[in-house]
């Protein structure tokens, strides 16, 4: 094979296995210039292969954003953030305490109002009953 024919094959040959009995391989064994070219392509491909071990670092919160973007992922992310953050936990507990307090005050107010209404109703009924009895007597 001529050098130019072999060189046209080198990018593909360098990415695969050599065939010892192949004509191009036989040419490489006897042509230093083409063997150098082959070694260069191998070097490029081996260098590319080594990039697989090199990691580009994303933003630290990327996994949480990915999870938040999944169906039903948002609530879980909020919960895990709260669990991991002291300030958020204190704020959430305060909010919960305030909500419980508001409910308790509301219940007390409702019971008092209900009792006062009951007493007023009984008083009105007693007054009306007395008036009705007086009219009947007359």
């Amino acid at each position, binding site marked *: 094979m001529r050098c130019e024919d072999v060189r046209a094959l080198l990018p*593909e040959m360098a*990415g695969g296995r050599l065939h010892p009995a192949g004509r191009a391989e036989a040419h490489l064994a006897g042509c230093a*210039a083409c063997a150098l070219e082959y070694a260069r392509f191998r*070097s490029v491909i081996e260098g590319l292969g080594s990039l697989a071990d090199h990691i580009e670092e994303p933003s630290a919160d*990327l996994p949480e954003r*990915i999870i938040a973007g999944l169906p039903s992922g948002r609530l879980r992310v909020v919960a895990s953030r709260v669990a991991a953050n002291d300030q958020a936990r204190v704020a959430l507990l305060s909010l919960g305490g305030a909500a419980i307090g508001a409910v308790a005050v509301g219940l007390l107010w409702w019971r008092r109002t209900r009792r006062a209404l009951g007493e007023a109703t009984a008083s009105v009924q007693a007054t009306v009953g007395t008036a009705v009895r007086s009219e009947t007597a007359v």
Partner: protein
Amino acid sequence: MVNHDVLARARRGDPRAFEEVVRATHRHAYTLAFRLVRDRQDAEDVTQEAYLRAFRALRGFREDAAFETWLYRIVTNAAMTFLRRRGRFGDLAAEHDGPPPEPVSPERSEDQAVDRDSLVRALETLSPALRSVVILKDVYGLSCQEIGEEMGATEGAIKVRLHRARKRLRDALFDVEADGEV
């Protein structure tokens, strides 16, 4: 690598298991996305989109391929969609691949070793279509058929692109004139 048990639970629809999968694999998925789109924010958007697609498709994942390879294909598909939408991908079938690359380290003609920084700079001289093919094949080990399926091209077209991309990288990394072209 994703734990087999975690993956099995994720495939059965356990959202917490899928979150574990995300935490175990997102850096590799992001790295591939970044290599394809060349912008950090865009790569994070592509990674998010890829995991959403993976979540929806996970039940259909068959373990005849490695999970990472399956995920890389989804990241690639999401990146191609992104690049096409942005008009940055070009036409895969086009003959023109841009001007020849400038040598990034011509002094290497006597030294066969290729250092990572020079290689990354050389990759940046390639068009997105050529860069994507050579990265997916020579860095991530996808087959030309798999790359073609994700990029919307025939296996033959991918092989042609791969040949050109390797040639251009060789020209960028080694002094073309030093030994003379035959």
